[in-house]
């Protein structure tokens, strides 16, 4: 027999009180830990995906949409810009890299991105099998795409127009898988990477078909004309956006303003736009956190009431223990241990609730948005929360056991039930 056993038996003696106290405190701890872990994981994930991209240049429209569509591949593009602009931008001495990307097609919901080989370097993606794209209509698959679609080297597929899965608007030219990337846990895992020519070829092929359809007899003549004008047409090619990194901060300070003021394009700063996005979503996170804090406070009041009630109801038991030789301090310990047990069990269950909840949320993201969230664990944030829970709980426990200080053993034992 010891203080712990007595405390545990006391808790088991009032299972409903104990259950309610643990349940409510676990829920609030779970909500607090879960929402903050999810928030910091998403922020980390987004920031991680930025890599060294400091500016995105695309068609005029919403800068947030441009960032979401070009970097996180979550939204629709704002439009297209001329490829010649990429070449012009790349020549600017302030620019370190200017990576064009072109997209607008998908295969079974996975976006096909036409770009250069520099694109994979942003995400430090390495080949697991095969080779990088060298020729038109070759693709390298992100790790998740390869796994989900069960595609292997040499497999071919037809892409569909648009960014969502559809079998109606399928293109006729097929892509061939020439490489698979290792997992990076970044957005490239969800992409099908090809070169810009592939995207242009797929669309040019169809444009030609539309032109050819009314008059089959003139096909050969038109093909001949196409070849003649190939070089001229290359100049008219378009891309969706350009991912830019600078040689020095001067580029970041001057170029976005210059592009926005003096061109038909817009320049968006991913870090700024994502900060803005987090400020919007942060309101929701704060609201849920406050709800969790409110539940936490209510839980601690429940613990206080249940312990206080216990001290009052079991005053005779506690007075008896004094006659058995228990010191006041021992009684404090027994009652405090009951509270501490409730808090510790609640913290454990709260943590488990948060992880179970996050598991479902992560799976939901995966199935609904094809976005894999890698849960990151901020020990400091978690310890902060645990500290807050402990402080509020300890105050509740101390308030509840305070009457023990003033306990008049003789009076309690004289006023026998």
């Amino acid at each position, binding site marked *: *027999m010891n203080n712990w056993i007595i405390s545990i*038996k006391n808790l088991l*003696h009032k299972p409903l009180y104990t259950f309610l106290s643990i349940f409510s405190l676990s829920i609030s701890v779970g909500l607090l830990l879960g929402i903050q872990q999810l928030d910091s994981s998403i922020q980390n994930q987004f920031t991680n995906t930025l890599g060294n991209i400091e500016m995105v240049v695309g068609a005029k429209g919403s800068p947030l949409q441009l960032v979401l569509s070009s970097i996180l591949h979550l939204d629709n593009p704002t439009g297209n810009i001329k490829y010649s602009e990429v070449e012009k931008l790349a020549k600017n001495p302030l620019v370190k890299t200017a990576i064009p990307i072109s997209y607008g097609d998908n295969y079974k919901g996975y976006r096909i991105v036409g770009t250069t080989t520099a694109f994979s370097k942003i995400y430090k993606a390495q080949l697991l099998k095969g080779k990088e794209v060298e020729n038109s209509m070759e693709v390298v698959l992100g790790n998740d795409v390869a796994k989900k679609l069960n595609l292997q080297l040499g497999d071919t597929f037809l892409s569909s127009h648009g960014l969502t899965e559809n079998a109606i608007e399928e293109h006729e030219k097929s892509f061939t898988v020439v490489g698979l990337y290792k997992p990076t846990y970044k957005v490239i895992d969800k992409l099908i990477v090809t070169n810009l020519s592939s995207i242009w070829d797929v669309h040019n092929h169809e444009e030609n078909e539309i032109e050819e359809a009314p008059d089959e007899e003139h096909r050969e003549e038109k093909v001949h004309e196409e070849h003649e004008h190939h070089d001229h047409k290359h100049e008219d090619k378009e891309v969706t956006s350009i991912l830019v990194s600078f040689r020095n901060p001067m580029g970041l300070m001057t170029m976005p303003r210059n592009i926005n003021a003096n061109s038909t394009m817009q320049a968006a700063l991913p870090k700024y736009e994502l900060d803005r996005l987090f400020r919007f979503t942060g309101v929701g996170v704060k609201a849920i956190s406050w709800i969790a804090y409110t539940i936490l406070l209510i839980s601690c009041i429940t613990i206080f009431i249940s312990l206080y009630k216990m001290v009052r109801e079991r005053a005779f*038991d506690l007075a008896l223990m004094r006659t058995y*030789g*228990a010191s006041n*301090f021992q009684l404090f310990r027994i009652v405090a241990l009951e509270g501490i047990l409730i808090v510790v069990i609640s913290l454990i269950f709260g943590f488990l609730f948060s992880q179970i909840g996050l598991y479902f949320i992560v799976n939901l993201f995966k199935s609904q948005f094809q976005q894999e969230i890698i849960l990151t664990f901020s020990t400091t944030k978690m310890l902060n929360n645990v500290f807050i829970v402990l402080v509020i709980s300890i105050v509740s426990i101390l308030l509840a056991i305070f009457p023990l200080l003033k306990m008049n053993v003789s009076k309690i034992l004289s006023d*026998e039930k």
Partner: protein
Amino acid sequence: MQSTKFKMVQTNNLTFEYKKKEAVFSFPNIHLQEQENLLILGKSGIGKTTFLHLLAGILKPVSGSVLIDEVDINTLSHSQLDKFRGKSIGVVFQKNHAVTSLSVYDNLKARLFFSRKTIKRSEIDSLLNQLDLIETKNRRVNELSEGQLQRLGIAMAVVHEPKIILADEPTSSLDDENCTMVMRLLQQQAQKSNANLVVITHDARITSSFKNVITL
């Protein structure tokens, strides 16, 4: 009762005052040698329970002293007194209670834990056997009958083999048969533990069980 021999329990000029009630109680001196029992008779409101609480060190006297086994319990610090009470004193209350969240057996274990004493499981079983409680060993105390609770109260007062057993009105609510049984058990257990038994009551039926009787 007065003797020059070694005294196990001794009180000298004990007085106590309830400040709110402005009532002052003075108590007679008692001197008990080893294994000597005492019955203190008195009407309700005369301060019987106060006297018992003074003997148990639950209350501090305004003046006077209580010596048990040559220790003046009122000179002890709080923690020393708690330890002393746990080891040397056993109290039987008028209505018997035990810790409600614990079983009969766990109550006895808790009693020993607070007394900082350990005895063998077989000795606890033997005590429960003597008090006809062995069947109820694993039952919660709220599942016990009044008679079983009364016997558990006695077991709790003697399990740690105290030097003095104090009983407050142990028979007042009992019929004659149970009154005799409880007194017999108390005396048997006191004898077995070599303890002094001090019973405080207004119940004159038990006068014949004692050689030493004082009336307050």
